[in-house]
């Protein structure tokens, strides 16, 4: 069995197409490893029968030569994606029994390309959190230093943990301020947040509509390219989706980076960043220089305002997006004698503390008398941050930064929300600017936890991002497997 788990997505796809393995045996291997790693709590819902049926369908297509790009590949889906006839809760009690009658565009794209669903993956409640601890059903455990019970990061903590633990060959995630890149960094895998508008948001439970973006969490850069090839695409049902054709990312894996200019922003080496991460950051710079890139120091002067602006804009949108969970039409309802009381009890019991906190912050910053001082100002800051990037991209092709200021932390240790929010300090600016970013593992820190490095490209330059990430990946040669991974 373990040889099957050793294959990454691209390798498994090759083996399937060459009929060395079948989707059914691959899928069964993953279903077994879901069972073997169940103590991590990555899965909220496992759809074994559906997985087996889809695998059998894929095997037919593999045999009759009509295989599609992801034919027979077993993957996990973050619980923010609505999946038809499969419970979709966004890790919230308020949606604990919600079964959509529709399929999100991104997951439908994956099924159309032959992928096989294993189940739904835990995340922070409504994707609000950076440690997966806000999930209604409890946190997920990072497969690295498993016995120490480290956080897998968040909000796509279940997705990152499952890929790192080899209980999914790949997974989908959503990233609003770092929710793909930060958990990917914590779990030693690759996480790609595409340009805002690349993937349709239709059918993804909304957190912050102007920031939410779906993307893949995978073992390798080429796996991410293959996944994103299928996930991305224009969708008329999402007015903010970009009507741009994305080239086949697999064509950009081996383009190299000779002559490319890489910006090193001085604002990203702040106090509080771990020494091991700084070391690997510097190493990464040297590797890229050795591969022929030109390293250029740059400045993104408004970076320090990104986090405060983010924590106004995202909660503001969330406070409105989450108003629909009112107990009237679906989801949990707490019966009461008046409408207002029903709202209070339903929402009071249905939402967790972090979600309530953000709804309150969001409601506050949009209130009359505060709107100008908070929401409007935050939007101005957002524009300045965008301009920072635009200016820098006149001089360089890509920006290299650490993914996070620290590696993973023990679950239950970071209780103060503000400290928690600092986790996203390096990922939030690209989110506000709508830019594509990727985090990939480059090494382990002294305690043996993975370190992630982030690359940020200009809008819709996913092909370039894949090229440079692939170079960095080969330089780093990260080939460690988490101790908590399925064997």
């Amino acid at each position, binding site marked *: 069995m373990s040889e099957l788990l050793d294959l990454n997505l691209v390798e498994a796809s090759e083996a399937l197409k060459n009929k060395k393995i079948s989707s059914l045996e691959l899928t069964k291997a993953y279903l077994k490893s879901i069972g073997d790693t169940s103590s991590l709590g990555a899965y909220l819902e496992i759809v074994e029968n559906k997985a087996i049926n889809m695998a059998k369908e894929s095997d037919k297509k593999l045999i009759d030569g009509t295989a599609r790009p992801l034919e027979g590949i077993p993957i996990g889906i973050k619980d923010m994606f609505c999946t038809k006839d499969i419970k979709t809760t966004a890790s919230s009690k308020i949606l604990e029994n919600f079964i959509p009658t529709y399929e999100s565009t991104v997951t439908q794209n994956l099924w159309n390309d032959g992928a096989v669903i294993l189940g739904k993956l835990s995340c922070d409640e409504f994707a609000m959190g950076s440690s997966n601890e806000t999930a209604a059903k409890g946190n997920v455990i990072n497969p690295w230093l498993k016995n120490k019970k480290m956080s897998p990061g968040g909000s796509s903590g279940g997705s990152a943990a499952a890929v790192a633990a080899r209980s999914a060959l790949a997974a989908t995630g959503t990233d609003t301020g770092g929710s793909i890149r930060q958990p990917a960094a914590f779990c030693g895998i690759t996480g790609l947040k595409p340009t805002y508008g690349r993937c349709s948001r239709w059918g993804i439970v909304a957190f912050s509509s102007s920031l939410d973006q779906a993307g893949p969490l995978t073992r390798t850069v080429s796996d991410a390219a293959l996944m994103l090839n299928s996930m991305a695409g224009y969708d008329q049902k*999402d007015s903010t989706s970009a009507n741009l054709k994305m080239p086949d990312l697999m064509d950009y894996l081996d383009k190299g980076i000779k002559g490319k200019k890489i910006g090193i922003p001085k604002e990203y080496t702040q106090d509080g960043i771990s020494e091991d991460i700084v070391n690997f950051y510097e190493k990464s710079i040297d590797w890229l220089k050795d591969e022929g890139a030109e390293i250029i120091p740059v400045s993104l002067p408004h970076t320090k305002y990104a986090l405060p602006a983010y924590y106004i804009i995202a909660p503001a949108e969330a406070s*409105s997006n*989450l*108003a629909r969970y009112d107990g009237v039409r679906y989801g949990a309802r707490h019966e009461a004698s008046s409408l207002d009381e029903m709202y209070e009890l339903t929402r009071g019991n249905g939402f967790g503390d972090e979600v309530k906190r953000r709804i309150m912050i969001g*409601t506050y910053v949009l209130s009359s008398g505060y709107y100008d001082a908070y929401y409007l100002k935050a939007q101005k800051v957002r524009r300045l941050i965008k301009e920072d990037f635009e200016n820098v991209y006149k001089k360089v092709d890509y920006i290299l930064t650490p993914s996070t200021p620290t590696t993973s932390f023990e679950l239950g240790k970071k209780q103060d929300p503000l400290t928690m929010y600092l986790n996203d300090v390096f990922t939030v600016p690209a989110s506000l600017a709508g830019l594509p970013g990727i985090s990939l593992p480059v090494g382990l820190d002294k305690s043996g936890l993975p370190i992630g490095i982030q690359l940020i490209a200009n809008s819709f330059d996913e092909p370039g991002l894949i090229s440079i990430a692939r170079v960095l990946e080969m330089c780093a040669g990260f080939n460690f497997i988490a101790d908590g991974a399925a064997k």
Partner: protein
Amino acid sequence: MNDTSTLKPGHIQGETGIWEMVIGLEIHAQISSKSKLFSGASASFGSEANRNVSLVDAAMPGMLPVINEFCVEQAVKTGLALNAKINNVSVFDRKNYFYADLPQGYQISQFTKPIVGEGEIIVDLDNGEQTTIGIERLHLEQDAGKSLHDQHPTKSYIDLNRTGVALMEIVSKPDIRSPQEAGAYVKKIRSILRYIGACDGNMEEGSLRADCNVSVRKSGEEFGTRCEIKNLNSIRFIIQAIQSEAERQVDILEQGGTIDQETRLFDTSTGETRSMRSKEDAHDYRYFPDPDLLPLEFTESWVQDIKEKLPELPDSLKKRLVKDFGITSYDASILVEEKDYVDFYQQAANGRDGKLTANWMITELFGALKKDNLSFSESPITTENLGELISLISNGTISGKIAKEVFSEMMKSKKSPSEIVKEKGLEQVSDNSEILKLIDQVILDNQDKVNEYLSGKDKLFGFFVGQVMKLSQGKANPGVVNKLLKEKLK
């Protein structure tokens, strides 16, 4: 108390002097669109509850709005018809509040950047005068659903069929000074909307409803504190509600009180307004740009294309009717009130006496329809038949008097006028020799009156005409009778 019968409309005589009303209207017009503003669900009226509800309307998780282009076009069309500025960039905002029939928890509307800016329309008043009312803005928004509180002793039922239906909110400037003006304004807006087909204007079905902002002041003073009367769905109620609300405010002010800014409802059974919620209870709607929707942007040439396709509007049509058919401006304004009227009129009057046609249509036809309680579309008289009647009068086949008889027969039997004239032998007698016979008979029978006339009592001429007409059973051509009598009695 002074005699109030001489007061101008919109004025209220109080103990301390005359008060003037200041009125502004917000009209909600449902766009005549097959589907909703942001979803593909049907926008039709009268379906079984919750039949026309898409996943977007029900605000299921992850659902996104997509703008209905047809509705945008209707709003631009309406803006152009209101002589208003079209904003080539406008933004959809979320208006946040909780209610059971508002699934999203917010209404998508336009707040700071509406699709249409300032404009103005000319309003025709009953006394034949005209006044100009300013338009502040027009914006697009979604309708909410319907709560049914009378279906169950302890529960409320929700019908989401209306949820997401496209509305245009047309906001006037506070330029209106009397309830009658307010009524005329709504009539004019409704007429324009029907001409361009943007809204069916059906107030009974709720396609057109108005919120009225009313305040009172002494002439020349600053505006007073206003109250808003919500959701009026007939012109009669609008007039009644404004009058009663203004009187209520005057009473309070005259007793030394102050007006609380509040939202009020009009009780149609008592004819009075009552408080719905005070300013303190007003929602903080937390408007912000909807991140699910891009700003609406269109080019000047797109707007120009719509402008060129606009049908002729009531004001220009009115001028043309006066010019082409020689009718009075007052008659023209009545005819252009509804597109159906003007189409009917133009066809009936085509190649005929325009003035005569207008008179027959406005006085006789409208009067008869009203008497029989029929709507215009139910008229038993077709435009062809009215036209034929006008021709029969003009060419002397029948007299005006006989025409009335024919007309009432037309109302009853729906037959054509020539058919009726033939059946009943009502053709006018214009033959000189036949009429001369009648004149001779009248002179013979009234020799004494003839003498009086010849000795200078000119007024008796009408008597002779009448006698001749009577003798002909109304069929003699009065023109010919006149002419021959004058010659005979020289």
